[in-house]
């Protein structure tokens, strides 16, 4: 059965590179008008998944439908109805903002009159109208990302794929991109599928989230339901001075504690159903044992905890890796 118009549907999709299975039979459906987030550590298979959906790499087995079109059988129909923004900034730095958009509109065979109207509207939407004739190399990272978002929508697609749309942006630019995406989504009735490393981004933008790890779909639900699925309502982040070797099981034995994760350097994340009670007991234990507490904070469960719960890894590690990624120098780029 194919997906309905405006939807993304994949069924038991598999990607193998030689003997390595990067995606191991994932099925999911993104409803028309929904914003769907794909979360996963580096190497989890989410980029491979998005590349299969966007016709960039062949599907080993399984089926995918975009806007009701079979990705394998009708790749051109799929390409016409979707906009894709890759993670790397790929706009031509030597071309102006207008030229970048115009060339992509032509690649989608947008008629001349519609091209002009669409570019005007998009430049307005991404707040780049006054930069229309500026060469792209003069734009900031946030502005370039906004240009790429406009570029992906220049042919008025119904479905929009974004691969880590705010990686490498400062917090202010990230918020600007989120607002822009929300405004564009409601104005154009877009179905959006995005991958991200940022939990706050997923929490704020996505109607539903899928967590992918080792090529498998490990969780899929709304952000609220995912948070509820993690045992415990609070997380205590605490760092001790030289804790003994058996400290983790002793913390786990405290009342209301549902889980403990040691993170090294005396740092522990303690999941609990009752934050205040566990905190009191934990402090009492530390005082009795003569172990100094260096830092302590109590928080509500976040998507970070959801991620750790399902993948056993800290998402912040992935964020650090993502932030450390430096774009390769571009030919002709000024130092």
């Amino acid at each position, binding site marked *: 059965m194919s997906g309905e118009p405006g939807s993304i549907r994949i069924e038991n999709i598999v990607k193998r590179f030689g003997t390595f299975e990067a995606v191991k039979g994932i099925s999911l459906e993104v409803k028309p008008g929904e914003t769907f987030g794909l979360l996963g550590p580096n190497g989890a298979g989410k980029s491979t998944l998005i590349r299969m959906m966007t*016709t*960039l790499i062949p599907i080993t087995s399984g089926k995918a439908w975009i806007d009701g079109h079979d990705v394998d059988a009708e790749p051109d129909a799929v390409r016409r109805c979707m906009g*894709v923004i890759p993670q790397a900034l790929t706009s*031509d730095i030597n071309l102006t903002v207008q030229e970048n958009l115009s*060339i992509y509109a032509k*690649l989608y*065979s947008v008629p001349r009159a519609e091209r002009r109207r669409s570019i005007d509207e998009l430049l307005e939407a991404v707040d780049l109208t006054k930069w229309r004739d500026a060469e792209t190399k003069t734009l900031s990272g946030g502005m370039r990302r906004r240009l790429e978002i406009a570029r992906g929508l220049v042919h008025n697609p119904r479905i929009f794929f974004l691969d880590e749309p705010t990686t490498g942006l400062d917090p202010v630019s990230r918020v600007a991109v989120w607002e822009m995406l929300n405004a564009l989504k409601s104005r154009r009735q877009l179905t959006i599928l995005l991958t991200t490393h940022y939990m706050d981004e997923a929490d704020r933008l996505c109607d539903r989230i899928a967590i992918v790890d080792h090529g498998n779909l490990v969780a899929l639900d709304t952000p609220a339901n995912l948070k509820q699925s993690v045992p415990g309502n609070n997380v205590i982040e605490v760092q001790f001075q030289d804790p003994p070797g058996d400290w983790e099981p002793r913390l786990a034995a405290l009342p209301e504690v549902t889980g403990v994760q040691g993170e090294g350097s005396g740092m522990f994340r303690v999941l609990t159903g009752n934050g205040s009670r566990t905190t009191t007991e934990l402090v009492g234990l530390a005082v009795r044992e003569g172990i100094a507490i260096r830092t302590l904070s109590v928080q509500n469960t976040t998507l970070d905890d959801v991620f750790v719960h399902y993948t056993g890894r800290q998402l912040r590690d992935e964020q650090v890796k993502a932030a450390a990624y430096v774009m*390769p120098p571009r*030919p*002709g780029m000024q130092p």
Partner: protein
Amino acid sequence: MIRMFAIVERELRKFFRSPALMLTAMVFPLIQLVVLGNAFGGKITEARVGVVDYDQGPQALRVHEAFDSVAANIRTFRTVRYESDKAAQEAVRAGRLDGAVIIPPQFSRRVYAGENPSLGLLVDNSDQFLSGSLETEMQSLTDALNQPAVPQRVLNSIALEIVELYPYIEYMKYLLPGSITLAMFVSVMIGGGMLYIDDKARGVHEGFLVTPITRVELVGGLVTAGALKAVLAGVVLTVLGSLIAGLDVLFHPLALVQLALMIIATSFAFNAMMFMMMVRVEDPLVPRAMFGILNTLLYFPSGAIYPIAAFPGWLRALAQVDPFTYAVHGFKSVLLKDAGFAAMAPDLLYLFAIGTIALVAATKLFKRTL
């Protein structure tokens, strides 16, 4: 088509906003040619010399025997029989022969009668290396023929009369066809090789691949854009080079048309060939590493700076398939010899043929997915 032209538009806009690259494509060949062009010299072998024998007498037979002896021993040249001096002259003009010897009527009788017998040598002096070597060889051969079986007290020497087809051609003029070809090659190497792979590595092509552009449109757009850039380099080098070298070819409309044809054919062939080589390459270092190898492998065996007749067999075989050889020969025909369309027609044919084959192969090899 709109999608193909979008690719062409993008490439050309980028090209005109990077003048430094254009400058490199044009200045580098001139510098290289001037420096390297002065550093070569060598012995000519296997040159093709036409023999027109109007005499058919016993003394003409002695000349033929002397030629056979050269072909069998020192191998400076081998001879091909021609029926008329006109046909031999056309063959030299068109590059099928490197020179021609005319044995005039009554040659044997004149030798026996001692009436100043002479042989005619027609040389293609647009190639100074080759014509110089032929002249020297023929002179020593004539001297040998003049030696009597029994030395005489008074010698009746046979004089060799050399006919040069063209006015004296300076070395700079000789180099110009090669420098024009090299400029186009460098432009193709930068535009069609390095920048193409850089774009690929930056993910720009990933952006193209998610649009409905077809494989043919994408390859066609990239090759057309590359060819246009190379045409520009070729035109600039032809104009500047001709003016610097003092050639008046720019003031002959027919020659300009022929030059335009050669520039277009060369640009097309080079670009399609380069694209075929680069179509599966992912690493930006590869085209940079290949630049020197390709330059040596294609440019030097082409006869641009040293005659092919001086090469060993394997290098001649390489020259035979090297599109550079045909480009250089075609440009020489127009710039130096005014040899007419017929002389450059085989070059044009080869360049368009190799370009078309490479383009088809490149399109087949081009992956529509990552």
